[in-house]
């Protein structure tokens, strides 16, 4: 079997996790030339409700497009963290926004508990871009997708006029992760 890396971005509807997944998949597939799929699972509600976005990156053709043995799990709600932490593989990464996730379940994974939304609000200037700050952190800690590719994918996917704000969010995420030991 070739290389296969699984991301799951989880939280609730409206937090931008599906867009974040699309950006990661586009970065890997189009700008880094690997294979990638992005799929999602959400409820019938127009907003709210649990939301999850999954990205698979591989150097071979991707058949089964869902994450089962997660390399990186991002949680934007306590509920998502409680529900999905057991799917993270041994030595995988659990990344949580500490404003939402206060109880971190024990497991054989690395945990990064970070004030993602708070940083988006205070340092970047808008809580809305917390998903892009998270992408910055993910890019830095996993090293699976190149920084240049993610930047290009962000620019192709975010609304016109918000490019600078989003790039600032992305770089803020990278800087946060550079502080991790």
């Amino acid at each position, binding site marked *: 079997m070739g290389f296969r890396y699984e991301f799951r971005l989880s939280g609730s509807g409206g937090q931008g996790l599906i867009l974040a997944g699309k950006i990661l998949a586009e970065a890997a597939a189009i700008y880094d030339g690997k294979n990638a799929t992005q799929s999602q*699972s959400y409820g019938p509600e127009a907003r709210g409700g649990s939301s999850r976005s999954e990205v698979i990156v591989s150097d071979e053709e991707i058949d*089964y497009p869902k994450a089962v043995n997660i390399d990186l799990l991002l949680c934007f709600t306590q509920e998502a963290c409680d529900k999905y932490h057991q799917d993270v593989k041994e030595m995988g990464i659990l990344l949580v926004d500490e404003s939402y996730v206060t109880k971190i379940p024990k497991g054989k994974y690395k945990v990064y508990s970070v004030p993602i939304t708070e940083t988006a609000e205070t340092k970047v200037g808008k809580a809305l871009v917390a998903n892009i700050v998270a992408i910055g952190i993910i890019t830095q800690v996993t090293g699976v997708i190149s920084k240049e590719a993610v930047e290009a994918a962000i620019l192709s996917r975010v609304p016109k006029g918000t490019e600078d704000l989003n790039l600032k969010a992305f770089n803020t995420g990278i800087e946060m992760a550079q502080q991790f030991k």
Partner: protein
Amino acid sequence: MREDDARLMTGNEACAEAALVAGMRFFAGYPITPSSEIAECLARRLPQEGGTFIQMEDELASMAAIIGASLTGVKSMTATSGPGFSLMQENIGYASMAEVPCVIVNVQRGGPSTGLPTLPSQSDVMQARWGTHGDHPVIVVAPSTVRETYDWTIKAFNFAERFRVPVVVLLDEIVAHVNEKIIVPTRGEFEVIDRDRTTQDPKDYLPYALTDSDIPPFADFGSGYRYNVTGLSHDETGFPANDPKKVDLLHRRLNRKIERYRNEIVHYKTELLEDADIVVVAYGSTARSAYRAVRNARALGLKVGIFKMFVLWPFPYQELDKLARRVEKFIVPEMNLGQIAHEVTCAAKHEVAQVNRIDGGLITPDEILEAIKNVSV
């Protein structure tokens, strides 16, 4: 194919783009999860290509509108999900009877009723075949990937045009919503078929003429040919007929039209069957899980292969019958309670093992692997 044509695309987007490549210039529909992106995309793209997009009041009207548009010679399509597909059945029968080429995309959801709007299912396999009443011809294709959705949407239009039948593109939420890399093919890479049009003088034209091919040449409404179109059993003139001989001729021809050309339509691919004593028969997104399961099983030394269907109807009975003469054990994974498994049983003439999920979850490779291990002992 150039690498700079690589795009991240969903199955729904691929379906919409491919329909344009096939020459579709009229879409009427009513948005419904998980098919809505097809309408969304075409609302933007059709005007750019000189086509027409109409959001109708419901699915009955959507189906009626594409039949009307197609009768004027314009390639037409609608897209829906289970509840809307139910509403379209009456007019799908009309399209079969009146031999109006059209394409209906059904992105399946769990049912019955409004069921599971956002989750995958494959439970409309039988409805796609038998949803409308009466013996009738229909062609149903079921792709597994974004690229296959692109290719098979074009083929669906070609079948519709070639045989003058409604063709159903049966997707599921996984194939419809997964974002996947595809190298967008150039327009010249595909054969695009247009319906055979009459060259007869309008006064000699018989709209439902009995011909050697069983497929009567078409005349566009508005091009000077006046003829009657009806859902009633009719004769060559298109007017209602009760004469048993004429009625028999019509209905046998309508069904023969697909039967005699089945070898042009039936399509599947096999892998690892040479030495196999177990075969997994799969279609749609479940085939993706099946491929992984089969590879994992091979790594464990189990002799298993795969028979993946692209076309569900007409069903590959002969091909599976032939396969059943040398491979004894069959496994059919599907997100329903055994709709295709039943047909495989008919073809193989013995019971087959099933893996079924109807809880809104995609069948996992491990669930299929478990079934492979069970039958191999």
